[in-house]
């Protein structure tokens, strides 16, 4: 791989190179190895990697008018490396964060001290559409509301920052593992010499975590993974995780509640279910409580959950903590609940629900990224500098119409990492989504789904918007 024409830009932190063009110390071995591989061989490797995804059926499905279209998330075969020192910081920052977020949920569905103490305004919490009034007064085992969290981190010149917490049904972990499997096969020697920490045991760590949540501490609980079904774009992941967990992959129609307990239909009769790792949104969980038109859910599920007869991971109502307005308060939560300073910084966020935030946002649209508080997947957002004046004006109208629905953040100078693009090394913007598990304790597998914006200059890494993946290597100490 030839790096001679590699375009280093001082405006962005480069994951592999120092500003003077020398490889960073922890990237040296990879850099040397890559340089020894010809561009043709690398292109061949890239093709093999891509082909193996389609052969193994690691796909997401887009359903159109005609036939289902199975696509793969493009993967770039050049790994991104995170040093052990960086990882320690990420790990402790994420542990701190999930701890505070769980305490926040226990609190806002309980006494709401954080509100009465004036740290977070009541309307921010109660006015959030993800606040589930039905969950008030509910207690969950070990105070674990969020068992699985996928936190999006970016790196700028200021270090790592949390872009968002995904606390409802975060996805992408199967790609962390799939990318690793295939990249490791193709870079055998350098993989070994770099001493990369393993991620493939994620399934067993997840299983331990879910077992922690079993009602009454039941040993060897019956765990199921609840999927919306094969039409969901993350279905591959659901199937993969069910397999890794040794859990049945169920849909709502496979479950029923009898006498306050959840059961699944098996060929031998009904079998009691103890823990549900659910990959469907709150809205669809239980038509008796949430959306009555939901065909995906299980009538009576929430009641069984409240009775303590079944565990749900994540618990309903966690969305209130990853709402983009509430996100802005996470550093305050950390200080409030833990009496510590946040280890990982938040991205500066302006809430349009506040007059000063609204004014600032409207005055600086061309320099800001504006997002809907309930939005996700990179949909419905405005990237100010990349938008036309007309687009900005139209968006400003939307903001004025409902300010509380918007937040704004500065355009981040996301770090870049070398990618193989048309046979050449080119820098592309990247982020990372590590997965944090919490049962009795916090467990973090040293790795992440690294997302990359494959279009030149693009800052949007979402797979629905032209993003791809990369293997991410966390090195041993």
């Amino acid at each position: 791989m030839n790096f001679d024409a590699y375009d280093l830009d001082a405006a962005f932190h480069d994951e592999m190179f120092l500003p003077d063009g020398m490889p960073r110390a922890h990237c040296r071995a990879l850099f040397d190895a890559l340089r020894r591989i010809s561009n043709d061989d690398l292109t061949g490797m890239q093709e093999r990697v891509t082909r193996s995804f389609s052969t193994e059926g690691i796909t997401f499905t887009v359903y159109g008018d005609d036939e289902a279209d199975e696509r793969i998330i493009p993967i770039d075969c050049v790994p991104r490396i995170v040093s052990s020192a960086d990882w320690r910081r990420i790990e402790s920052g994420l542990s701190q964060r999930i701890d505070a977020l769980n305490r926040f949920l226990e609190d806002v569905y309980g006494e709401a001290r954080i509100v009465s103490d004036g740290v977070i305004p009541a309307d921010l919490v109660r006015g959030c559409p993800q606040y589930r009034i039905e969950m008030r007064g509910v207690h969950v085992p070990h105070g674990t509301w969020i068992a699985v969290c996928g936190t999006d981190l970016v790196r700028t010149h200021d270090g790592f920052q949390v872009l968002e917490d995904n606390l409802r049904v975060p996805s992408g972990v199967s790609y962390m593992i799939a990318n690793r499997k295939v990249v490791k096969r193709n870079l055998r020697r350098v993989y070994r010499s770099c001493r990369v920490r393993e991620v493939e045991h994620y399934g067993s760590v997840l299983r331990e975590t879910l077992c922690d949540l079993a009602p009454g501490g039941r040993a060897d609980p019956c765990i199921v993974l609840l999927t919306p079904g094969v039409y969901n774009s993350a279905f591959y992941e659901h199937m993969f995780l069910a397999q890794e967990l040794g859990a049945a992959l169920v849909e709502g129609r496979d479950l029923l509640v009898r006498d306050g307990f959840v059961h699944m239909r098996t060929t031998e009769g009904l079998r009691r279910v103890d823990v549900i790792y659910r990959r469907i949104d709150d809205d669809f969980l239980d038509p008796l409580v949430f959306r009555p038109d939901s065909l995906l859910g299980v009538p009576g599920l929430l009641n069984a959950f409240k009775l303590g007869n079944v565990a749900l991971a994540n618990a309903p109502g966690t969305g209130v903590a990853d709402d983009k307005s509430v996100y802005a308060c996470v550093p305050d939560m950390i200080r409030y609940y833990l009496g510590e300073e946040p280890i990982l910084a938040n991205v500066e966020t302006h809430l349009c629900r506040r007059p000063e935030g609204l004014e600032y946002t409207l005055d600086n649209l061309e320099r800001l990224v504006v997002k809907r508080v309930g939005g996700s997947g990179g949909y419905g957002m405005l990237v100010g500098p990349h938008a036309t004046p007309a687009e900005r004006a139209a968006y400003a109208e939307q903001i004025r119409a409902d300010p509380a629905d918007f937040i704004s953040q500065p355009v981040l100078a996301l770090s870049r990492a070398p990618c193989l693009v048309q046979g050449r090394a080119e820098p592309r913007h990247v982020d990372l989504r590590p997965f944090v598990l919490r049962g009795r304790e916090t467990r973090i597998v040293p790795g992440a789904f690294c997302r990359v914006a494959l279009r030149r200059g693009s800052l949007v890494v979402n797979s629905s918007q032209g993003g791809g993946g990369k293997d991410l290597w966390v090195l041993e100490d």
Partner: protein
Amino acid sequence: MLSRSAQGLYWMSRYLERAAHLCRLLELQVEALVDRPASMIHFGWRRIYASQDRRPPFEDDAGLDESDDFTLADAYTLAGDLTFERSNPESIRNCLAAGRENARQMRHCISAEMWTCLNLAWLRVRDLDIEDIWKVSPESFYARTRRDIDTFVGVAEATMYRGEGWRFMQIGRFIERAQRVTTVLLAQLATGKRMPDTDPNAGLETGPETGWVALLRTWQAFDAYRQRYSVEVRPDQALDLLVADPLLPGSLARSLETLVRELAAIGPSPNAGAGAAVERLAGRLCALIRYEWPDHPDRPALLAEARAHCLHLHDLVSAAYIDYDPGEAPVR
């Protein structure tokens, strides 16, 4: 296991068996296009369509022109209809797609080797059309696809855990096979009767035009026939071999025996009534072929009865293990 998983594996097997079966029929049929007389080719098409319970994509039967000129053009249309037609739920492509889709949804219940094998087979067929396979040698497409499915069955045999999932796969496969054997034999007997130059007793008529040799080859039974009987094919003996011979892997008798064995190996049904009915019907079906076939005066009627039992058996298995009323079911 989860009822829906059992159901998925059951249908996966059924669809693949169906696709393999149609591959064999079409492989022989396109071979026949090379050197068989037009009348036999038409007989072959009618038998296939009758066994698929489908009408050819022409306005009426007259569309099947019996002159040599049209035979090949017709064949192209008919083979396309049976192989790739998206609107034909039973086309080879659609059966393979359905089998593979069931596998995709249940791949946590099968071995990784099985999934890869089937997925590759599907990826190979997915973007093909009749034009692509017709250019050179269509029979090699059918042979290859059939071999892919045979390979899948072999890989399953070698790698899959013999739990309930396996049993439901076997049940699906052999119910399908039993239905196909009875259906094709009935179509053979009926189509034979309609042929203008044969008498009403036909169907069991001898002669190269009546297609018994092709039928034997459909179940890879031609060599077995020659070993068991003689080089000259007699329809009554061919029929005996395909229906009642317990040593022929594809025979009806053998399919039913496997079916009964696998059904017996599944645990008690949560719906006790349906469970008992499954057992009784499977036993009766086996007995029908084993004890009544040899001297039964009306064999087509007996085959029709067996076929009806197979259809009913499918419903009973479903009621016993899949669609049972959970309100009545025991908690295990």
